[in-house]
Structure formats: C-alpha cells, structure tokens
C-alpha cells in the first residue's frame, strides 16, 4: 500500500491514503488509527501524542521534545507494512429519529420534491442507508456520517440557516449529520433525535466516534419526547444503543 507523508510542522504529519472519499480509503485510515492505538496501549510509539482521522488521511501529532519525525515515521510505516485490517471493526450504534412534523423536519417536503420521492420514501431511504462515521469535526461531537442512499444526494442549501436546534438530523451531498449544539448550518433538515451528541455531564461527552456504523430507527413524537426526557434528566441507558 502506498501512502504519502505530508508535513504539518514539527509537531504533526499526515498519512494520506488517497485523494478521494471512499469507504475503502476511509477504512484504511480507521485501521491505522486503531493500529496506532493498539501499539500505544502496548507501550510503543513513545512521543506520539494523538491521531486525528479524516476522510482519507490520518494526522499523527507528536511531542518534538520526546521524539522526532525521523524516529516516528518509520514506526508508522512499519505498522502499515505489517498490514492493516481490511475493515476496522467499529461499534454499531442505533440512533432513534423522529421525522414527523414541520418543527423537526422542515426540509423533508422540499427534499422529497427535489429527489422526486414522497416524504415517506425519503424517510425509508434514510433509514435504509448503510451509514458510517467518517470523521468528527467542525464542532465538538459533530460527525460526518457517510453512506447516504445515492438517490438522496443534494448539494448544501444555498442559504444556510443562522440557527438550528440541537440534535437536528440533516443530509447533504452523500452524508448525514446530527448537530451537537444549537448552531448555524447549511444542510437539509429531515428529522430530530432525542439523543445529545455532546453532553458535558457524561464521562465521555462525545457520543459518536470515527468508524461507528450507524442505523437510524424511526420513532414518533411521543417516543421522542419520552427519550428526550431521560436524556435531559441524565437517566438514559446509552450503552443500550451501542453494540461493540
């Protein structure tokens, strides 16, 4: 496997696996991310600080007082040469989502019209999409989740919204996302999950991780409100939503 090493100063470098967005390339990124984690857990890769996966590259950060690029890069090369798992096994995460009503799904009708579907068909396509978290960024806990059913591909809205509610489920291009905070956003809003993607009170405040496989599960407004109450109160059993 040929990778490109790109300099990111004297505290980081990037391992680039390709110049396209594909499940194969992102799988390699995630596999190296996991392999680095294992090597560190075994006491190796001294001086490495953290790795940051993105669509097609893994950024490796290091402490230049503890190691050097010249020492670290061959160790990363050796990990790659040893062979990366074809598809790093991530967690399987269920995300309940309510697609009902103008409040939660203000763009559903427009998405249906532009993709020549009924709203029900849009929902069915979203539910059937084999989603996978490619990268987190833009804000803490915001996951770019690829794998959207191709018939739902739409460019971003020309006029981004200034403010949209936390936990809004949106689509754009070949991806879906869930907003962890009330924030601006240019994607098409088709639903709302009662889950919080970021909750300061939890020991691990960020819910999703790169490599997670995601399945949306349809719930109605009453179910949404019931789960939302538990989330608010901090009594939801989050582990129930995850299969390792």
């Amino acid at each position, binding site marked *: 496997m040929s990778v490109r090493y790109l300099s990111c100063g004297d505290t980081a470098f990037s391992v680039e696996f390709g110049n396209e967005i594909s499940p194969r390339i992102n799988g390699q990124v995630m596999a190296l991310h996991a392999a680095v984690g294992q090597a560190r857990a075994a006491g190796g890769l001294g001086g490495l600080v953290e790795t940051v996966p993105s669509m097609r590259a893994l950024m490796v950060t290091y402490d230049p007082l503890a190691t050097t690029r010249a020492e670290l890069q061959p160790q990363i090369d050796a990990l790659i040469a040893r062979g990366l798992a074809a598809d790093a096994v991530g967690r399987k995460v269920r995300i309940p989502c309510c697609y009902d009503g103008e409040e939660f799904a203000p763009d559903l009708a427009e998405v249906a019209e532009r993709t020549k579907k009924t709203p029900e068909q849009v929902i069915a396509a979203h539910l059937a999409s084999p989603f996978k978290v490619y990268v987190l960024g833009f804000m*803490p*806990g915001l996951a770019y989740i690829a794998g959207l059913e191709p018939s739902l591909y739409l460019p971003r809205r020309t006029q981004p919204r200034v403010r949209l509610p936390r936990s809004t489920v949106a689509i754009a291009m070949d991806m879906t996302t869930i907003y962890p905070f009330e924030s601006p956003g240019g994607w098409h809003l088709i639903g709302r999950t009662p889950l919080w993607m970021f909750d300061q009170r939890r020991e691990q405040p960020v819910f999703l991780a790169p490599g997670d496989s995601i399945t949306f599960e349809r719930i109605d407004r009453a179910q949404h409100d019931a789960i939302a109450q538990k989330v608010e109160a901090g009594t939801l059993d989050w582990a129930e939503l995850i299969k390792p």
Partner: protein
Amino acid sequence: MSALKVIRAGLFDTVQDLGRIGHMALGMPTAGAMDRVGLTLANALAGNPASTAGLEIGVMGPDLLVEAESVRVALAGPLSPALIEGDAPPRPLESDRSHRLKRGQILRVGMIEGSSTAYLAVAGGFAIAPFMGSLSTYARAGIGGFKGRKLAADDLLPLTLDSAPAGDERKLGGPFDYGSGPIRVIWGPQDDYFSEAGRQTFVSAEYTVSKEADRMGIRFEGPTIEHSKGADIISDGIGPGAIQVPGAGLPIVLLGDRQTVGGYSKIATVASVDLPRLGRLLPGRTVRFAAISVEEAEGLRRDQEARLQRAIAGFQLARPAGGIDLTRLYEENLIDGIVYERKAVT
C-alpha cells in the same frame, strides 16, 4: 471558600493550561495557552508544575480581590500591574515575578504593552474540576475552564490553597527572548496546491495581522497567494500553526481554538518554536515568513526548551510586596547606599 473575586473584568481573560490533548479525533479542539512560554514562566514563578492552569490575559487584565488569607500570584508578560489597598493610590508592582497578596488587597493586572497575551498563575492553581482532562477554556462551545467562558465581573475564581505557601518571591532574571526576524514555517501539508509564484509570494512578502485575530487564529493581510490546484481539499486534520489559504488568497494561521479538521489547502505550518510569538501578535503588526526543514524546527524547539529551563533555573529572589528585598539591599547598598524603586524592564 478561598477565591480571587473579579471586581472588574478584563477584555478576554480565560483559564488555560497546555491544552485538552487527546480528543481531536472526537472533534474536540485542544484550546490551551496561546503562549506556552508565558504560561510556563508564570507557573514556575508561582512554584507550580508547567501543566497547572493559569489565567490567560487578553490585551487588558482584570482587577482581582483576594478572598483568602493570602495567595501567591505570579505574572508573566509585559504588564504594568498595581496593588490596591483601601483608599491608598494604586501602588505599582513588577511583572515577571511572584507576589504574596493578603486578604482584601486588590491586584490590578492592567494593560499589556506590546503583546496580546500575558499570564497570571496562582500557587497551587485553581480549584476547578478538569473537563476531558484539562482546564483549558474553549469558549466557542462553552467548555472547560471557569464556566466555559471568559471572566466577568463578580466571578469567584476558587483557589486550591487557603494561604500562600511559605517561601521567597521569585523573579525572572531578564526578559525571555521569544526570537525576532521572520516567523519560521515548514512547507506543507498542501504546498503542492499552490503555484511556484504563490509560494514565493508567501515567503517574500510582508503580512499584517488583521483585526480578525483571536484564540482561533490570525487572519493576515497582504499580497494574495496564488493557488494552482484550488483552495478546496478533502477535509483533513489541522495541526497547531497550520496556515490555511482560502480562495481569497490570504493566509490564516490557526491556533489553540482551531477546529480539528478543515477543507482549505494549507500552504505551510508555523514551527512550534514560533507559536508563542504568534500567540502574542497584536493587530497591525507585520511579519514575514521563512521556510525551514522539519529537522531544523525540531532542533530550534529543543533549544528553546533548554533556554526556558535555564531561565527558570536562573530565577532570582525578589522583594516581597511591602517587605524588604535583602538580596537587592546587599547588592546595591554596598555600592551607593540607596535602594531605588525600579520598574521591571519590559
């Protein structure tokens, strides 16, 4: 509870340590001190380990009332602080040293001269629970530090210690040399997205810090940098000091509060040795950029760390506020018999 009470807020004062490290994969920015050298010096003057969180002062600092039996504070950076006690006129204090303050005294941190940031450390640190392993404030998401935000009037900054530890006050031997000349950068990660002319522009032109300069990054003004493969890339990780160049062609250096990944091509990255300089730059200042190799940058960083450790090892005893500076009395009385009040050289 022992605390420092904010009587008057400064412009942008946040609790920062060396950063929230290890969570970038979850989209969590590292935040952390803009000037790691300044925070380290303040901590060392206060007798703290370098990893202790301090107060990062942005442009103008707060007035802080001591609500503790006593507290040792240390200031690092070109400040002109003062001590206010009762109705007496404010008494100037030196920066780049520690001071023992008593209950009821007010520390006026004051303005910073010639830098955008300065640091205040308290011996023992703040009694604030870390969030994801760090006390660094990331104000954009309301995370970390003191309530996830900059300090405001009436805030009570809780202290770990009820009184200042015994011991002498210390001061910095001389101003720390942050370096001068061009800001050193390393090409990449996407220098191949720029034309040869564009790269030449970047390392030969003068750039001015615009008003859009904050903890996230510094937007520069100057000649535009020509792309050859466009400004957009498939988003990838953003390291500290990454210099992204959006379509308009002007460079933006990304600092502590930067996002973890981004989709603009990055022509170069500031060498870590010069990040503290960037963290001190004021709007209107001009800089040039010069390219060096990764190996050179690593060496420069090791040299800087050695100088920093030497500066800390060379701290001198300082006169406690209101007390007698025996060292200076010995040194200077033997020469001319009079001890002059002397302002710190900044």
